[in-house]
C-alpha cells in the first residue's frame, strides 16, 4: 500500500467517523416504537393480502405479531432503527417458543436469527403461543 493510498484511507475513515458523529449529535439515533397502528400500516404495505385477525403488540414496542383470519399464517412486524421490517410465516412451519413473558420467533436468517415479542405477562404469552402454534382459536 502506497503512502498516498494510506493517507486517503485514513482521511476517508475520519470522514465517515465525522458524519456518523454529527448524525448522532443531531439526534438521528432513533428507535421506532411498534404500536398497533404502526404495525397494521406496515403490514398493509408489505403484505397487503394478509388479513390479520388479531394482534399481539409487544409491551416494549419492539415487535408485534398477527395471526391471519384463516389461521394458516403469522405476520411479524419488528423495529429496525427508526423503521420496521416484516416477516410472513406459515403457521405450521413457524418455530415459536415461550421464554417467560416473551415469545421467541426463530427466523434463521442471515440478517436476523430471531425476533422477541414481549407479552403483557406469562399467561398472555402462553395463550398466544397456543394461538400461533397450537390448536388455540
Amino acid at each position, binding site marked *: *500500500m502506497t503512502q498516498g*493510498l494510506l493517507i*486517503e*484511507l485514513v*482521511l*476517508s*475513515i475520519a*470522514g*465517515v467517523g*465525522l*458524519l*456518523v458523529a*454529527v*448524525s*448522532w449529535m*443531531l*439526534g*438521528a*439515533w*432513533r428507535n421506532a416504537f411498534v404500536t398497533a397502528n404502526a404495525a*397494521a400500516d406496515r403490514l398493509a*404495505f*408489505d403484505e*397487503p*393480502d394478509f*388479513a*390479520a*385477525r*388479531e*394482534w399481539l403488540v409487544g409491551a416494549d414496542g419492539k415487535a408485534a405479531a*398477527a395471526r391471519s*383470519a384463516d389461521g394458516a399464517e403469522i405476520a411479524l412486524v*419488528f423495529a*429496525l*432503527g*427508526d*423503521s420496521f*421490517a*416484516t*416477516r410472513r410465516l406459515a403457521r405450521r412451519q413457524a418455530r415459536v417458543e415461550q421464554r417467560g413473558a416473551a415469545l421467541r420467533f426463530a*427466523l434463521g*436468517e*442471515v*440478517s*436476523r436469527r430471531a*425476533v422477541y415479542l414481549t407479552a403483557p405477562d406469562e399467561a398472555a404469552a402462553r395463550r398466544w403461543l397456543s394461538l400461533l402454534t397450537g390448536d388455540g382459536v
Partner: protein
Amino acid sequence: MNFPDIVTLATPLFIIAILAELAAWKTTGRGRYETRDAAASLVMGLGSQIIPLFGAKVALAALWTWVYQFRLFDIPNAPWAIVLCFVLDDLRYYWLHRIAHERRLFWATHVVHHSSQHYNLTTALRQTWTGSLLNGAIFTTPLVLLGFHPTMIVFVFGLNLIYQFWIHTEFIDKMPRWFEWLLNTPSHHRVHHATNPRYLDANYAGTLMIWDRIFGSFTPEDRAEKPRYGIVKNLGSFNPLVIAFSEWINIGRDLLSARSLRDAVGFTLGPPGWSPDGSRLTSKMLKERQARLDAAPPLAPAE
C-alpha cells in the same frame, strides 16, 4: 492524456453535501436520517473503494490491457471521444443495472445499494463489495474492445458515479421539465428505490433518462403515491457484513436445496424472488398481486 481519479477528488464534496443535508434535515424536518443506517451506508461506501484494491482492480486492469490489444478502432483521447465514451458507458450502465434487478446472481451484488429504508445522500454511497470484477469483466470489456482506453472508461464511469450522488435526496422535488426529460433526477431515482409495487423495476438510468424511455422502463413519480424505500423483504440488521453478503448466502442455501438443474438455474439466473414452487414473489408477481387487490373490495379490519 492523463485522467484524474475524480471519485477520490470528489470525496470531500460528498462529505460537505451530507453535512449540509443533515443540517437541512434537522432544521426543516424534511427527509429522514437514522444514524445506524447512515453509518452502515458509509461503511459500505468505504469498503467498496478499498476491497477492489485486493485483487479485482489488478485483475480488471490485466484483462482490459490484454483486450485493448485487439481493439476494433484506434479511438484517440480527444474531447469528442470522452463524450462518446460517456454516452456508451451510460448505456452499458443502464443494461448492467437492469440485469442486476432482473437476474438474481447480479442482484446479489446490487441489493446492497437498495437495502436501506432511507433515501438520503448516504444511500448513494451504500455500494457493493462484490460486484466490481464480475460487472467490469462482463459489461465494460466491450467498450475496451471497441477501442476506448481503459483509463478513459474508468474516468467517465467516475463521472457517472458522481452524477448519481446528488439524486439520492428527498430535498429536491422536481427539476425543470426539460431536465426531467433528459436526465436522471431525484424524482426519477426515488421511484427506482421504491418498493411500492407500481414503482418496482423502473428507472434504471445512470445519467441519461432517455434509455428508460427508449427501452420501456420509465415510470414517473406520482405525488399521490409516496415512495417507500428499501427492498421487498427488508434486512433485519445494520451489520455491513450482513448487508454485503446476505443475498450470496441466501443463494448458497437455495442451491443446496435445489433438486434439479432447473432449480439451480432459477435460483441464480431467475429473477429475484423466483422459487420452484412459486411460494416466493418476484416483482412481476408483486405487481399482479397488487392489481388483484386494487380490483377487489378492501380487507376486513382486524379485531
